């Protein structure tokens, strides 16, 4: 449980959360924001594993992608709600 919470927290204030949110805010299409966030999640996991596929678990990748998807979607919602352009 602690491992799970730690991974979620690290991703929220890591690249998937922050860059995912920022990329999501660049579009009004929620699906596009989510996809960009998800890709950041994949990218981040690979970067911190030094591009070695044996150095991370499927759960780490899954959590990073889900956080990226959520952050990207939230970014797009913020764009829709908070901008007129």
């Amino acid at each position, binding site marked *: 449980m*602690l*491992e799970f*919470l730690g991974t979620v*927290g*690290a991703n929220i204030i890591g690249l998937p959360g922050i860059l995912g949110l920022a990329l999501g805010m660049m579009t009004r299409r929620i699906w596009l924001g989510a996809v960009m966030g998800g890709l950041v999640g994949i990218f*981040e996991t690979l970067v*911190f594993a030094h591009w070695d596929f*044996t*150095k991370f678990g499927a759960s780490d990748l899954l959590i990073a992608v889900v956080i990226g998807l959520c952050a990207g979607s939230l970014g797009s919602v913020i764009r829709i*709600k908070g901008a007129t352009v």
Partner: protein
Amino acid sequence: MADSPEKRGWIGRIWNAIWTPAVMFSSGFLILAGFLAGILFWGGFHWTLELTNTEEFCTSCHTMETNLGEYRETIHYSNHSGVRAICSDCHVPHEWNHKIKAKIMAVKDVYHELAGTISTPEKYEEHRLSMASAVWKKMKASDSRECRNCHNFDYMDFTIQETRAASEHQRAIDNNMTCIDCHQGIAHSLPPDYLEEYQKVTEEVASESNGSLPQQIADGSEEIRSYLTTQAD
């Protein structure tokens, strides 16, 4: 029908203000102000995080006194070169993602301090094996990532190491072993039956990683520990 602004509570008014376009500030002003606020926030956040990496912070809890006393007897605290590895050097990863994960997981230490899980020497000894085991598992799974922040096989000159150390390090490279395979107990006292527990840890980690990690413990690990303790004296 939505309430009029006058009827809204303070939360509603703040929410409304957040999503109302700014008319009194230019875009340039808002971007610059946001940028500066971001720098201040991030700098403050990072600075605070670094404060939690200090030895004073780590050992400010009563339950950390035993660990501190043991660590002060080792080569990582006092040595001929004057280089010191403090708690965070071995227990906190450097890379951002791993570091934040470790910091969040360290909240458990606060809980156990408050709960008094290891508040007496007897309780500490009772939990020593499980605490050591948890750290070994992390180190084994990460290929001793925190050790490798300072130590690296690539940087070792085996010709100036003692013969046995050079031979063991060469064997470690040949067998794809990792630092913690031999150096358990390098900074804290070892619990009884630690070798059996370490074997369990290696098997557990290997099964989680589909057997890709080695499951070896160096021969003569007792000699290595005794050598390192002697060096610290």
